[in-house]
């Protein structure tokens, strides 16, 4: 078996199997950026973009709540069988959870894409710090399966990594040049 190349620069699991898509300033709220990881099998993992306010300025997370209204908790989502029957069907602006930081600021995380909710990450309820430590892997929010014939079109409203980085860099300029 030949030895692997310099892994420090080798692609990670996300690089190898997923495409990163972004939604900037979700619902018009500045910097509330979401990152959607789409697997080559069309499945999507909703995560916080590294620029999301929750992950800034040494904030800590106090709690995460999947109870998005009195009648609906994402924790009650159940899917069964290969066809994932019974999963809640989500649209772009469906809330997934609310994150409360220790400074009492609260943020809502949204689906960003249309699809069937397969699972939410219960591990972050136990260990909210995962959200800060590994926002794009173990600190994921939810897994969503888009409809087969919408697997390409669901990302049309999202930003590619390049486009997102341009937006972020412009923000930096805007902040350094106050009006």
């Amino acid at each position: 078996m030949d030895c692997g190349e310099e892994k420090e620069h080798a692609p990670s699991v996300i690089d190898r199997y997923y495409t990163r898509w972004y939604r900037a300033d979700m619902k018009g709220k500045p910097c509330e950026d979401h990152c959607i990881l789409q697997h080559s099998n069309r499945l999507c993992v909703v995560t916080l973009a590294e620029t999301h306010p929750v992950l800034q300025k040494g904030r800590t997370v106090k709690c995460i709540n999947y109870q998005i209204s009195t009648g609906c908790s994402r924790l009650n989502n159940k899917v069964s069988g290969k066809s994932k029957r019974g999963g809640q069907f989500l649209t772009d602006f469906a809330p997934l959870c609310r994150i409360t930081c220790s400074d009492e600021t609260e943020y809502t995380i949204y689906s960003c894409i249309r699809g069937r909710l397969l699972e939410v990450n219960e591990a972050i309820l136990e260990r909210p710090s995962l959200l800060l430590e590994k926002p794009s892997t173990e600190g994921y929010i939810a897994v969503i399966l888009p409809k087969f014939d919408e697997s390409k079109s669901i990302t049309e409203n999202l930003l590619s990594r390049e486009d997102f980085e341009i937006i972020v860099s412009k923000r930096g300029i805007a902040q350094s040049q106050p009006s």
Partner: protein
Amino acid sequence: MLPLREKDKPIIRKLLSAGCCARCILRFCCVSVQAAYRQPQEQTLEELQAFIVDEENGKCQDCAATESTGTNDKSHDAALSETSEDPPSKRAKLEPSVSATKSEEDSAALVKQKDEESRLCVVCLGILQELCGTIQVIKIAEAVKAEKYEFDSLVLSLSLPAQLCVREHSCWLHVKEEVRAKGLVLDKDDVIQVKEAFKWIMQGQVAKELGGVAVVTKSAFEVGVEFTHPETDTDCHFLATTCPDCFKPTKNKQSVFTRMAVVKALEKISDARFLKHYPCPPTQPTSSCTPQDIQCLHVSVFIAGRYNKFCRSLPQTPWVIDGERRMESSVEELIAAPILSTFRADGFNFSSSGREDVDVRTLGNGRPFAMELLNPHRCRFSTAEIKQLQETINKSSDKIRVRDLQIVTREAMSRMKEGEEEKTKSYTALIWTQKPVQREDITFIDDIKDLTLDQKTPLRVLHRRALAVRQRVIHSMNTRYVDPHHFYLGLKTQAGTYIKEFVHGDFGRTKPNLCQLLKTDTDILELDVESVDVDWPPAIPE
């Protein structure tokens, strides 16, 4: 001499006038002597006519005999049915010729006899007439020869239009009383079936034409003869209204009027109801059945073995996304190509004891596999020939290798899928660690025994498999240090353990995982299957 008795005479008279062929008359007389069907039908007809004339005590007017029985049925049937009032067209044609030549009885008999010889049977629609003659025998033999099958025996199968059952039933009702009068125990089941008579006539001739192969009732090689009769396809449609339960549409059927459904409906329908909807005896058709192409089919042969895969860019089965091929070849295609051409099979179904990813190699003794070969034209091979075939496969590509190749039974194939959960597999993985590690940092892994994992269905397969948490056991592990960021990890696991997910954790969805054990991010760079511990198929010494 035909094995007929006195009580057959009324049956013969009735059926002759109804437009039945000689062999169908034998069937309804429940004659089960095969030789009676094999003699030329013209001869049988003559003998039948002579047999009923005998009884007339010197009155050599068979016309009169049939005429009188003809009148008999009319009065007889009238009670049951109105439709039978309409005489079959053939009879209508006959009558003027009979009356016109009354004075010249001899010539009248001659005309009628000639007519009867050539007319199409109202029951078998020609199947037991011209359609079981020499032309058909040659056609069958040619079809078999053309495909160059190798076989010792064959079974002839016959597919008849479903409406033939309706005609058979109508004819049965026509002579039911007379048949039962023959013997108390005789019933519809005792009437010889068209299929059976056809085979009695054809089997010997086909065997002879093919140079003496055995034509038997059970064989791995089937030669299918099919007839259709479009002219009367609508004949069974009335059954759908009388017995809707029998004709439920299903996905894969072209028509609901299958033979099975028609037979079932005929068992249910009352005689009176049948006679209300269908003429008795059946009407004269204008065309005989149409023979379809002969279908030859050999039962599947199964071949098994073990394969190695030495390439990290070869999928196990063709990889197609959105109708486009992703990789040039596949394990199953590389193995199948030489096998298909050797067995001259039409296609195959590949199955194996699990499967590896496109970038995973399978080393050691390899992975058990089995293939169903569809419609093989050749299937007898010596051990040496199979060994030769294995060598041909191995020479054809250096990406794969096959061993233990052997012909197996369908039943034995299930051994491969048995105990899928219990069997173990061994792997070697090349691991990367984010933090540098020392030799002694990883040795604790060698001491871990029977580690139970909770694996959520990996995200990479979640689109096609149910979401579940599955418990899988890693029986043992060993490490081989390479450098501060790399080591080889050997694993012996329960079948069904996802190794890649154990290493990188799959977003924390496999727990525990190697990242947790080593307290740093880990990733898998290469993976090899070292062994698939299934003892089937049996090893063949090299």
